[in-house]
């Protein structure tokens, strides 16, 4: 059975189905992270010791800045990977996508060291409300980065075979993956100042 509207736009939405689907999914993700950001605001407003908790957590702003730069770079390589497919440059597509996966890996390794330092100093989610929301939000974000890496690794390996049979469909799949990756990066861009600076 052939899946309809994988390459051509559906007349009623004006989009191919995959793109419409990913935007619906991202809308649900906005609600998920939006709920957590709201929880952060309410917990912060209701706490008397927030600044003391924040200072006691000793978050590493330098590492977080490095991670922010890594994720911004990964969004550039992601969009270049998609653009390479659109311009029929398959070799460049693989190179840029590999760089995107590498950036995701670097982000998670840095996060691992950050978490390790926290646990070494006996800072756990149960320690105080700030650390609870910190671990919840950065942990959920980290899981999203990992999920994006899994999808991109698939497109780097077995998923890339589609280029020989249905190049336009693979290009669209990569655009969908890129939209998800950009959303995950955008969440970090908001998490960084909210958790590390304010």
């Amino acid at each position, binding site marked *: 059975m052939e899946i309809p509207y994988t390459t051509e736009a559906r007349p009623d939405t004006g989009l191919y189905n995959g793109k419409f689907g990913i935007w619906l999914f991202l809308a649900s993700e906005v609600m998920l992270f939006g709920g957590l950001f709201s929880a952060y605001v309410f917990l912060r407003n209701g706490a008397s010791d927030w600044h003391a908790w924040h200072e006691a957590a000793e978050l590493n702003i330098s590492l977080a800045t490095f991670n922010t730069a890594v994720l*911004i770079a990964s969004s550039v390589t992601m969009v270049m990977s998609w653009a390479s497919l659109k311009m029929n440059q398959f070799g460049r597509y693989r190179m840029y996508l590999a760089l995107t996966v590498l950036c995701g890996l670097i982000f998670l390794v840095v996060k691992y060291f950050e978490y390790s330092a926290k646990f070494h100093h006996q800072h756990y989610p149960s320690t105080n409300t700030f650390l609870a929301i910190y671990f919840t939000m950065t942990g959920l974000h980290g899981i999203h980065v990992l999920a994006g890496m899994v999808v991109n690794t698939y497109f780097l390996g077995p998923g890339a075979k589609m280029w020989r049979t249905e190049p336009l469909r693979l290009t669209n799949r990569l655009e969908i993956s890129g*939209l998800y990756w950009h959303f995950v990066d*955008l969440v970090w861009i908001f998490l*960084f100042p909210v958790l590390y600076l304010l």
Partner: protein
Amino acid sequence: MSLKIFHIVFVSISTIVLAGFGVWCLRAFFLERSGTDLALGVFSLVASLVLIVYGKKFYEKFKDWSNL
């Protein structure tokens, strides 16, 4: 919205956040004279300028591609 437009939105927001962070770090440097604050501030402001140049070039290169 295409990936092209979402990328431009992302680069714009990143530029604003990096510029704001750079100013925040330089303000902290002038208050506490910490070398880390100075380094982070300069890095962030330079990165935000790089993003502005990159965003402009990206837009010009792909302006004929669909926005949908």
